């Protein structure tokens, strides 16, 4: 278990991490989300003892990282920036790390085989592509068969196959009871892997809850209604104020004539329609996608960081090519205002569970990862 308590880090005048408190439980994948520059990498570096916090503590099973006796056997970490000497071969890189922990040489071969780098083991790491470098980083993280994994943007630079591989690897490790803490700026990626979310913006905690709860808490809930008598139903729904709903009910008409009802559950609409003897053809609750929920919650912190992080564009481009085509990162929040959900070009009938199945591997544009290779 990773425990972060009141953690703060300033770089000069800029506060990178602002009194963060959360914990990461074993046996599940905890996604660490935030826009670029929100402080995810810094938080991970603080947990790993690479940076000194101004205040607060970060412990792994109650012990500070710096006090771990054989740290790589306890915690495996993949950092966002490369941590490999470019002149050293993959094998020797892992070998020196293995030696520092008293791990046998055969672990090096195993780790290389696990990430599929056996054939290039003797090649200099400086000649590796982004994806190969990422695999080497993952091999280093898994070298000591650690109980806790801290992965900073692990899918960056991986091809679709690699993305799938790391996803399944994380799930298998979580199922084996390990603690998996993985950061991403892509909600869609997290939707497919994470069980639990820790969301930060501008270094401060925004949410620490399950993926479902995070979406449920998001602002936009609407119900899509198809009826041959739209104007009659709209009048009926808007006339009667819903109980306990301060905002009341709003009904909008989509381009294809369907009604989008906010402020009322599907059940209530169905009952109202029945009472008014209105025929319904479709009654579908809409849920904000994870992406939209995330946008909504971090809106305040995005604009500031979009300017301050020069890497935002590049990273978003690569990540967008891997995850799915929904959002190319968060550098341009104006592109998809969170309010305008169901009126888009895509059929607005996606049921909540489709969030997870739909943007998977088939529709992946591979240009980003090919360019990386």
């Amino acid at each position, binding site marked *: 278990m990773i425990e972060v308590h009141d953690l703060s880090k300033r770089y000069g005048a800029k506060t990178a991490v602002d009194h963060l408190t959360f914990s990461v439980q074993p046996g599940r994948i905890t996604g660490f989300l935030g826009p670029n520059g929100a402080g995810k990498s810094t938080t991970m*570096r603080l947990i*790993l*003892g*690479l*940076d*000194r916090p101004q205040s607060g503590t970060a412990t792994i099973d109650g012990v500070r*990282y*710096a*006090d*771990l*006796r*054989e*740290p*790589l*056997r306890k915690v495996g*970490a993949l*950092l966002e*920036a*490369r*941590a*490999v*000497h*470019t*002149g*050293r*071969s993959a094998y*020797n*890189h892992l*070998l*020196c*790390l293995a*030696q*520092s*922990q*008293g*791990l*046998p040489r*055969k*672990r090096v071969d*195993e*780790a290389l085989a*696990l990430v599929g780098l056996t054939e290039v083991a003797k090649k200099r790491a400086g000649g590796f592509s982004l994806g190969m470098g990422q695999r080497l980083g993952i091999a*280093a993280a*898994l070298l000591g*068969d650690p109980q806790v994994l801290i992965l900073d943007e692990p899918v960056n630079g991986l091809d679709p*196959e690699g993305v*799938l*591989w790391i996803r*399944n*690897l*994380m*799930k*298998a*490790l979580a199922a*084996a009871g390990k603690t998996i803490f993985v950061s991403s700026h892509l909600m869609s990626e997290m939707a*497919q892997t994470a069980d639990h979310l820790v969301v930060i913006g501008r270094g401060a905690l925004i949410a620490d809850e399950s993926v479902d709860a995070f979406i449920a808490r998001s602002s936009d809930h609407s119900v899509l209604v198809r009826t041959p008598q739209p104007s009659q139903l709209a009048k009926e729904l808007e006339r009667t104020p819903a109980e306990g709903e301060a905002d009341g009910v709003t009904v909008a008409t989509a381009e294809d004539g369907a009604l989008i009802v906010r402020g009322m559950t599907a059940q209530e609409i169905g009952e109202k329609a029945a009472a008014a003897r209105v025929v319904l053809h479709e009654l579908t609750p809409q849920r904000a996608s994870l992406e939209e929920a995330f946008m909504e919650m971090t809106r305040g912190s995005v604009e500031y960081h979009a300017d301050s992080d020069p890497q935002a564009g590049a990273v978003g481009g690569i990540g967008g090519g891997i995850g799915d085509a929904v959002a190319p990162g968060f550098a341009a929040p104006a592109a998809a205002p969170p309010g305008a959900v169901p009126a888009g070009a895509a059929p607005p009938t996606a049921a909540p569970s489709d969030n*997870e*199945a739909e943007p*998977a*591997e088939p529709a992946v544009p591979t240009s980003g990862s090919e360019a990386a290779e």
Partner: protein
Amino acid sequence: MTAATPDAPATVPAGRPAEGRRSAAFPRLLAMEWTKFRSVRSTVWSLLAFLILTLGLSVLFTWLTTSQWSKMDPSQQLDYRRDPTGNILGSGFVLGQLAICVLGVMVITSEYSTGMIRASVLAAPRRTPMLAAKALVFAVVTFVVGEIVSFGAFFLAAPILNSKVPVSLGDKGVLRALLGAGLYLMMLGLFALAIGTLIRHTAGAITGVIAFVEVLAPLAQLLPGSLGKHVHAYLPTEAGHLVAQSAPGPNDLLSAWQGYGVFCLWTAVLLIAAGWVLKRRDA
């Protein structure tokens, strides 16, 4: 979520070795640093450059000296007669030692420039033992290579010089000077390592070391009177190289071992400072 891919089996790594086994961490760090050292090409090149440069220059300068002996200044002839060993070594070391300086700096700054330092610090989060292991490995290597070079240069150059100034291993101070040359290079390597750790950037650190080795000494001699003489005598490499002379010069303020002690002190202070900042700074 369960729609996993069949073609990418997620294997959970197995084969965890016995955990909690109590064993000294420092030998492990030594093994790590030795692997790091030998697995990068630049170290081999630097040592090879040092070897060839030093041996070649020692032989070349000694040959030039003997062939031009009759045209040489009497004071130069006297200097050769007083300390033939130091002259043989000195002619090669003036340039050759720069390779050791560069290597000593690069051993740590290349970790910063490539990001390897983060992997190192994750493996050894207490940091200072890692620096100590690195220093020990590098010290042993430079000492061994330094001794090979100093004895090699002596045995190659002494026969050439023999016609003008006969010198043999059994002469007073010769063996000490040859051993001292290796000790000097070892300490020079550690000196460069400490400055590299403090400065972290290759170019800046190399400039800093060269400034100490090649620039400060002539500068100090420009200081007036005995002040300049004393400052000059206590500069790290000026004091340190005395141990590689077979006989003291007429103007030396310090004895061979006193001078080496001064060099050790400089290096120790810098290494302690380096360890302190390494521990405190964000990696």
